[in-house]
């Protein structure tokens, strides 16, 4: 019965939510961004979950696992299919280098600081401290695009090049997150939380490539323009379920396999736009369901976690600012980039959520801490991010049109 009620609430919310998520216009920027990111669904999950009404308890959440696996593969495909190398090449190469430097520095700073924090408190074992710190570092480095999108919808910016750079970083640093997450998974043994030997890492890589490329090749072989809507839906759904299911069965990541398959399709299939449109159509309801389930797994009874959240927030901000500062200093830019531009890249969510959901499936016993830290910090970052972006552009706002709050600027 619990499962039935859970399904009805989640499906109903996903259906209604996918229609109204982006239409609130009378709210402050930060609050608008909170809704834009879909954090309200995490709160709904929290209400339904173990810390709330207990409708979505651990057993019920486990029953949703096949859907989560499918959803992760879907997110991977959707993210990967947007990486058409031809298009990426048209953008300045410096952008990529700046993104890489800021991503690596953020990762290092957050991982080290969190590891030190856990070691000083010595409440978790050394191995667990390493794993949790690394995963926090991985999630910290990616930037969500929501705050930039909100800022772009409400204001006009004089220096569009700077804005393009920020959008580029927010779009591409997720790829680094995924790359580090892949390395992490390859070099750890699921379940035992120990470091895996090189041979095991190679095996992981081989299986991931297999689980990604076989479905992608099937898609390429089967794909043709003449498919009816239903046929194409069937093919795409089948491919995604097959990728996710194979990954889960092999003990690898559905998110990473989906990502690789998506990139492969993006660069080899001439009908990729049709697939992208289908994936985008299903994104919102899938994302909402995943957020609700993520929220349900949020354990509010964590001791010492508030301190960990504070450390994470401080060092993520420091990592982003220092990382971007170092990156910008390393390259000569054709336009002025403010030294504190890293503050504009604090928005968190999207890929980070995908990564912790995937981590939760593989390491359920280690993920409660991470979920706690990421969810609270996301709430904070989303609230302040739009204002911080505006602060970076303060001197560059087009004075003639002015900072037109509420103006919808479709670009």
């Amino acid at each position, binding site marked *: 019965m619990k499962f039935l009620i859970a399904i009805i609430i989640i*499906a*109903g919310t996903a*259906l209604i939510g996918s229609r109204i998520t982006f239409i609130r216009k009378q709210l402050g920027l930060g609050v608008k961004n909170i809704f834009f990111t879909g954090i309200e669904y995490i709160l709904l999950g929290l209400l339904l979950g173990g810390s709330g009404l207990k409708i979505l308890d651990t057993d019920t959440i486990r029953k949703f696992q096949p859907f989560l696996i499918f959803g992760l593969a879907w997110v991977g495909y959707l993210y990967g299919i947007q990486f058409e190398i031809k298009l990426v090449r048209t953008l300045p190469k410096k952008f990529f280098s700046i993104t890489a430097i800021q991503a690596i520095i953020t990762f290092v700073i957050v991982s080290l600081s969190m590891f030190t924090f856990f070691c000083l408190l010595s409440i978790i074992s050394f191995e667990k401290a390493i794993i949790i710190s690394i995963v926090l570092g991985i999630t910290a480095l990616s930037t969500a695009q929501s705050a930039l999108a909100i800022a772009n919808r409400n204001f006009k910016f004089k220096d569009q090049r700077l804005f393009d750079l920020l959008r580029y970083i927010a779009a591409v640093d997720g790829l680094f997150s995924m790359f580090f997450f892949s390395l992490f998974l390859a070099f750890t043994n699921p379940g035992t939380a120990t470091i895996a030997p090189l041979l095991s890492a190679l095996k992981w890589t081989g299986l991931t490539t297999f689980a990604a490329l076989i479905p992608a090749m*099937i898609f390429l072989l089967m794909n043709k323009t003449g498919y009816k809507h*239903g*046929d194409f*839906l069937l093919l795409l759904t089948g*491919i995604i379920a097959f990728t996710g299911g194979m990954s889960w*069965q092999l*003990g690898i990541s559905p998110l990473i396999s989906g990502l690789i398959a998506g990139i492969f399709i993006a660069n080899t299939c001439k009908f990729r736009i049709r697939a992208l449109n289908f994936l985008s159509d299903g994104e919102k309801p899938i994302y909402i369901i995943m957020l609700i389930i993520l929220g349900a797994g949020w354990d509010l009874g964590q001791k010492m976690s508030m301190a960990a959240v504070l450390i994470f927030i401080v060092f993520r901000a420091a990592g982003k600012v220092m990382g971007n500062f170092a990156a910008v200093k390393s390259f000569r830019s054709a336009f002025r980039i403010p030294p504190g531009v890293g503050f504009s890249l604090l928005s968190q969510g999207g890929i980070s959520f995908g990564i912790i959901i995937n981590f939760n499936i593989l390491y359920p016993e280690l993920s409660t801490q991470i979920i706690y830290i990421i969810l609270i910090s996301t709430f904070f970052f989303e609230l302040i991010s739009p204002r911080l972006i505006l602060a970076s552009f303060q001197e560059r706002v087009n004075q003639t049109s002015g900072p037109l709050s509420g103006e919808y600027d479709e670009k």
Partner: protein
Amino acid sequence: MRNRLITFILIILAMLVVFNAETFLNSDDSISPTLIIGFMLLSSFVVGFFFEKGGLPRITGYIISGLVFGPFILKFYSLGSVEELLFLNSLALAFIAFNAGSELKIKEIVHDIKPILYLTLGVTIVVFSGVTATVFFISELIPFMRPYPLPAKIAIASIFGIISVARSPSSAIAIINETKAKGSYTSTILSITIIMDVLIIILFALVISINSLIMEPGSSFEFSFVFFLFLEIVIAFILGFLLGKFIIFLINRVKVEFSVVIIALGFFVIKFTHFAGSFISNNYEMNLHLEPLLICMAAGFTVQNFSGYGDIFLKRMDKISIPVYVAFFTITGASINLNILRAGWILGLIIFISRISMIYLGSFFSTKAARAEKKIRENSWLGFITQAGISLGLLSEVVRRFPEAGIHIQAILIATITLNQIIGPIGFKYGLHRAGETFLSKKERSEKGNKSENT
């Protein structure tokens, strides 16, 4: 064709690797439902295509794919895994019931009322009496029937007869959608199949009640059973009408992801009827079982006939019908228990032949009496062979009511139903083609017309 063959090989190879690879998880032997669904969708999609190329219905391909890769032949997934996925079948059935109801158009029924009435009555009477007689005459060859006295033998034979009358709207709808068939033959067959779906529940209840008198000495005719059955049907129609009005409201006023809403509504109806049934049984000691498929069918019928949104409804349903059919028929194929089939296949085959012969005779005389169109006269019997879900549902009721004989009846009739499930769609597709109502046959005809005009 070559691409699809390579795809098929790739899917199989991938599954073999997954089964044999040393994985990173120390989990048990269970296979992820996500993987099974992915495999089912892809493999059936390809197999369906091969069948289509061979002139056979895609859904037969889906059934065969489920059967071959299922728990009794290649064992790509276990019986437990299939059982876990059976909820998808319920969802698909609800979806198909919505579709079936919305395919019934009062105007068309009224237009073809004479053949519909004659065929419904004629085929029902001939098949029921013909199959009953066949089973009765061969009862000495059926081991479990031998010890029963004569009246009980007739009663048991009549159970075979009544279940033989049932048909499969889901297969009929799937074939019509696949072939994009349209015309008087199509609508007549579909109308009769759907009407029979309702009628069979009433007839079955009557036969079972009468049989109880014969097989359980001392029992009396259960008027209450028949009364409650009528009540169930009336309530189902009322609820279906209200649900239909709600769907009309959704189409008209709310912009929602329609296909998902329809499946969610189907799920809700199934769960609601189960809940209502157990609630009434626990609190009022009444055995009221609302048939969810009747509710969905009535809802579809309401949208089609009591609003201007019938075509929009059908179009939107059609958008996602293929994945639904693939999942439904593949799981149906995977659920075919070959062990039971092996045990009862000879008797099953005899009943299968008898049923088809009776359908032919019944259709022949009914259409002649109704002076139906030639294409209906010659091909209607081909549309009545399909059998699936409802027959299996009735069989479980037989087992519940008459446990001793029921289990043997079930074993034999499952074999018959399996044959009908595989042969039925082929027959119907052939019938539609012969009647010239499929998209392809219409295209062929127009091309021929163009050629003769040119020469």
